[in-house]
Structure formats: structure tokens, C-alpha cells
């Protein structure tokens, strides 16, 4: 989306200095409890496990994965809507992992969120003016609120005369524009977009994506962009992190990831996307067996090993996987320049997996 030069990209490490947002070894477990008076913990949902990444100013980092992989939890942790179990979050050089509410308040001006569902994220009893103006009221900014709100409405493509209308009077795409205007109100540095276009029809989706792109350029915004749609993520992102079962399994520049994926899960995910057009890709499609395992009891070793087609090629046996895949989680290593993957047997360039998956 933004113009990040190649030299900048090459220097990027999963977490490094000079970044706007730095997340290091972030972990979030949700306890599962039993009993009413004596609550005892009987298990844990391992929602986010050892996640490390950073975002440079002006950059867009895409976060992709299937439902339940922890991408939204990561977003909430970054926004401090949830407290991390361990790990650290640094925003603009300041450690914010454990700051209290009062200290957090001024920081919240700098980081805003756009939500997935434009229907439930807008209060049906408030007018659009109240909704977009809420950030100004909360943070007690100077100046005339109405004028500011109307300028914002104009900027995101809403008619400023609709200031006194209610959310139900707008279509899905227009509501999402309201959500964008609200996020933009305090001129934040970072906007976390949690599936901002998933609820929209394709023709409207393109309008919102173009709007986000224009706003990024105009206001020098940094995005953490979460989506399950690989096409959308490729379109908007400079770099992309792929998550599986709470962990980042691959992190690289957007084009590199799509042209030369290293992790078998990324490869399978990309091959599963139906491609509009007439390209014959069905022969190359890898259909993964089974479902994503439960995050309550994640598999030992590499979390992907029970479904991994590559591990089966390496072992030479359909029912076996190599020992290190079963026993040890591979670290997120730099395999190519600024291309990180957590796999013991990363995919070679040009290597095909589909025969194995179908065998």
C-alpha cells in the first residue's frame, strides 16, 4: 500500500529498532475454569503463542490465518483491550504491556481500530455525528466538533449533511466509512483494521480498500491489517505474517510470500484460494486433511505437523512425520533475506506438494 523502499524492507527484522509497533514473544492464554465458589483452572486456550513482529511507520503489515488462529486476539492485545499473559508490546518506543488505564488514555489517541462488522460496531441509538464525534468528546479536544466531524465525513466519502442520521439509514459500505471516519478522528499513527471488508460485497469492498489506501498516503498512517482473505491481504500489505494455531509460521514481504512461500501451511493456504479467471489451478490445489486442532490442546512439536504434507514427503511415509517435527516447535528463522519461516523442512523454490497431499 505505502511506498516502502526495498532497502528499508531488507533491513527489517521480525522485531527491530525504529519501529512504530514492536511485539516481542507475546503470549495470551485464556483459562478454562470449573466450579462456582472454588474456581480451579482445568485447562488453557493457547490463543496467542510466542508472537514476535514489528511494524515500521507508514507500513502495512498483513496478518492472515483461518478462524481461531489468534489474529483477532493479537489485535486486541496490541490495542490493550486484553492483557497479555507474557511478552512485551512497545508502541512508539514506549513499553505499554502493563500500563494502567490512566496512563493508557493519552496513548489511545495514537492507536485506533476499525472493526469487522459495520452493523454491530455502531451504536444504533446515536447519530452519525455523535458516533464520529465520540473520540473528540472522550479526549476533550479543542475546536468545534461539528465542523471537524463534517470534514471527516466529507473526506471518507459521506455526505456531511447526513450528520444527524442514524446508522440504520446507511448501507453496509457507508457504515464502514463511518467506522473509518471514527478511527481517523484523532489522527492516530496506527490503525488496527480487523477484517474491515469481510462483511461487504465485492464491489463495495474495493471502494473501502481504495479509501484506506488514500488515507494512508494522506495521513501517513500505519496499518495492522487483519483478514482471512488472501487476495485482500496481498493487495494492501507491504509485509505479511501468516498465523496458524496462535503462532506466526511465516513472515515476509508480500510478493515474496505469494511467489515463493516457504512454509507448507502457507503453500496449502495459497493453493486453496479459488482464483477468479480460467487458470487451471485445480491440479495444483493442496487439500489439507482434517481440521485445525483445538488450541486447548495444541499438538506437540510443530503445531502443523498432524496436517503437514511436506513432513510426509520427508519421512517418505504417509503415516509418519520426522521426529523433530513431532517433538520440537521450529523457531521463526530467517531463511532468505527478511523472509522468516518456522519450519524444519522449508519448501524449496519450485517444489511441488500436491502429489503428496493427494497420494
Amino acid at each position: 500500500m505505502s511506498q516502502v523502499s526495498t532497502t528499508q524492507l531488507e533491513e527489517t527484522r521480525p522485531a527491530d529498532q525504529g519501529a512504530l509497533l514492536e511485539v516481542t514473544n507475546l503470549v495470551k492464554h485464556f483459562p478454562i475454569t470449573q466450579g462456582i465458589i472454588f474456581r480451579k483452572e482445568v485447562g488453557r486456550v493457547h490463543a496467542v503463542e510466542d508472537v514476535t513482529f514489528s511494524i515500521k511507520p507508514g507500513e502495512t503489515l498483513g496478518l492472515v490465518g483461518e478462524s481461531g488462529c489468534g489474529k483477532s486476539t493479537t489485535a486486541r492485545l496490541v490495542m490493550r483491550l486484553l492483557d497479555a499473559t507474557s511478552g512485551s508490546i512497545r508502541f512508539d518506543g514506549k513499553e505499554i504491556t502493563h500500563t494502567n488505564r490512566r496512563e493508557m488514555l493519552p496513548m489511545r489517541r495514537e492507536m485506533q481500530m476499525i472493526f469487522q462488522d459495520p452493523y454491530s460496531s455502531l451504536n444504533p441509538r446515536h447519530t452519525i455525528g455523535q458516533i464520529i464525534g465520540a473520540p473528540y468528546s472522550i479526549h476533550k479536544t479543542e475546536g468545534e466538533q461539528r465542523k471537524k466531524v463534517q470534514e471527516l465525513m466529507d473526506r471518507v466519502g459521506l455526505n456531511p449533511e447526513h450528520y444527524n442520521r442514524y446508522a440504520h439509514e446507511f448501507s453496509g459500505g457507508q457504515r464502514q466509512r463511518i467506522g473509518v471516519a471514527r478511527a481517523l478522528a484523532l489522527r492516530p499513527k496506527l490503525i488496527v483494521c480487523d477484517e474491515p471488508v469481510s462483511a461487504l460485497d465485492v464491489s463495495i469492498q474495493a471502494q473501502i480498500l481504495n479509501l484506506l489506501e488514500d488515507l494512508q498516503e494522506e495521513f501517513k498512517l500505519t496499518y495492522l491489517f487483519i483478514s482471512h482473505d488472501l487476495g485482500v491481504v496481498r493487495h494492501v500489505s507491504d509485509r505479511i505474517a501468516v498465523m496458524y494455531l496462535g503462532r506466526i509460521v511465516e513472515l515476509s514481504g508480500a510478493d515474496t510470500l505469494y511467489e515463493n512461500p516457504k512454509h507448507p501451511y502457507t503453500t496449502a493456504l495459497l493453493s486453496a484460494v479459488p482464483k477468479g479467471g480460467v487458470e487451471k489451478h485445480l491440479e495444483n490445489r493442496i487439500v489439507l486433511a482434517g481440521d485445525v486442532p483445538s488450541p486447548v490442546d495444541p499438538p506437540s512439536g510443530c503445531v502443523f505437523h498432524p496436517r503437514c504434507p511436506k513432513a510426509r514427503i520427508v519421512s517418505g511415509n504417509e503415516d509418519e512425520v520426522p521426529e523433530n517435527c513431532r517433538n520440537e516447535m521450529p523457531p521463526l528463522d530467517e531463511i532468505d533475506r527478511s523472509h522468516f519461516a518456522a519450519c524444519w523442512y522449508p519448501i524449496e523454490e519450485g517444489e511441488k506438494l500436491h502429489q503428496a497431499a493427494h497420494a
Partner: protein
Amino acid sequence: MAETLLEVKDLKVHFNTPDGVVKAVDGVSFSVDRGETLGVVGESGSGKSVTCLTALRLVNLETADVSGEVIFKGRDLLKLKNDELRKVRGKELAMVFQDPFACLHPLYRVGDQIVEAIRTHDDCGKDEAAKRGIELLAAVGIPRPAERFEDYPHQYSGGMRQRAMIAMALVHNPDLLIADEPTTALDVTVQAQILELIDKVKQDFNIGVILITHDLGVVSDVAQKVMVMYAGRPVEVGSRDEVFRQPLHPYTWGLLESIPRVDQKGTRLIPIAGAPPSLIRVPTGCPFHPRCPHRFEPCDKEEPELVDRGGGHPDACHLTIEDKKRLWDERESRRAGKVAS
């Protein structure tokens, strides 16, 4: 020549509401052959679901204004008596719905729900029905089917529920399967599994399939024939290759261009201007004309018919075939130029 299973002729479904008449479906004609998958694509409110619900007569004929014919294996379903219809529905004509979370009863075991579906049409014992049910669960790829047969829906994942729904639709070897957005609620890797399953079922059981979706990618993967709908009517109908190689209607162009592609670098998307019209006040003439960048003289006055204008397959647009070819080539090269730069 393949057997024609379903033929819909000039179907119109209008709903009377306090705000006015909603013309949800306004003149839809199509046919499905045995062994063929018809993909119906369109945005929300384009009438694709209502078309198929009406084909199954799942809209209330007393409150909705329905005209036209739905001929299924020689009989007009819209004219059948209720008890005759009940013999067809679920037996020869089955449906898979969008949301596998809402379509299974949460308090009954999956197995019991399948047994009920079997015994609705077949006079057989519970044990025999259970045996068939377990075979079907195995056929749709549910591991350890005998155990899973006894499970409740909440013990199934989304993909497994959709498999169970497909198994339930197949209990009486239907001739035609209607799948309304069967993969929309699922993740891409699971979507790939379900699409493969639907394709396999189509071949194994030699049936016809209507696949309703908003995702052009899904259609290009599994459908042989494609119908693009807009504002309650078809704007383009053709084989998959025809529609994707040489699309003729500006709405189809817009759809194809507004999707960010996995296999191409990020270029600026070309959205369709505006929003889909209200079905109470459908624009005069061509319903797409207010959003169409290529509109000209007759577009706001005359409604174009869905006919073959020399492009090889029917479309509903006033432009001449030469103009269409030129405009599409221009748009394609503009796009290719952007990708290159």
C-alpha cells in the same frame, strides 16, 4: 444430449411490503442438465437465493407474488399440490444451506437428524436408516462415522457440519442439489475440501448442482455454466470459459476487476461506483445503468433483453458486440499495464 432436470421460465417473485413492492426476482430463465453445475453469482440482494428458494417453493405463495414456471423433470413445481410437492422436496430435489451452524438442531444427535430425513420418505426401520446414515457420513468424508453419528452438532467443526448437511441432502439420491453459499461461512482450506466434495458427489451420484455464491473464484473452480445476476435478473449466462474469457456485460467486468487477486501484485482496484439499487425502486431501463461507465442513449429508457448479441452467449446489455470486445480489451490492457508498472 444430457437430460434437462430443471427449467425455470420467466420467474418473477414480488413481495408486497408496507414500503412498496420488492421485485426480488424479475424475469429469470435458466436450465440445469444432469451432470452439470450451474453457478449463480451476484451481490447481496441480487435475487440469487430467492430464485432458488422459489424453485423449491420455500417462499410463501400466499404472501409473495410468483409468476412463471419451474419445470422439474416435466412437472411445474409451482402448480403442484402440497402433498405432491412434499414427495419431490428432499427426495428428488435437495438443498444445502449457507449456515451449517443454524441448520442442524442443537439438541438432537446428528445421527437422529439424518435418520429422520431418511424415514420421512422411506418406509424403513430405524436400524436400517442408521446403517445408511453412517454409510453416508463415510461417503462425505467424516472420519470414524459410526462414532460421530452419535455426536451432537456442537461437537462437529464447521466443515464437518457442512459435510453432515450434504450427507443429509443426499439421503434419497436426489437428482438436483441446490447449494446456497455452502462455503461462505467456512475457512479457505475447508472451503477447498467442501467444493471438492460437492464436485465428487456430483460425479458419483450423477446429479445436477446449482451453486449459489457471491464469490466468482468459487464459481470458476467448480461450475460448468455461470449465470451472473443483478437486481433480480440475469445479466449474463454462459459457460464458465465464455464468461471468464470474454465477459460481455459491464457488471461482470466490474465484478472481475474489483476483486483483489491472490496471483497478482497489488494494483489499484477499480470498484463499481455507487451501490446496488433498492429492489423497490429499480432504475428504469437497464437496472445497472446508474453505475455503468459505458451507458449511452437507450440505457435509461429501454430494458435490454437477455439474448445472444453475437458474443457466443446471451447477455443483457445494449452495447454492440464490437464495442463490448473493444471495451473489455481496453480494460484488460489497462489492468495489465498497471500490473506491469
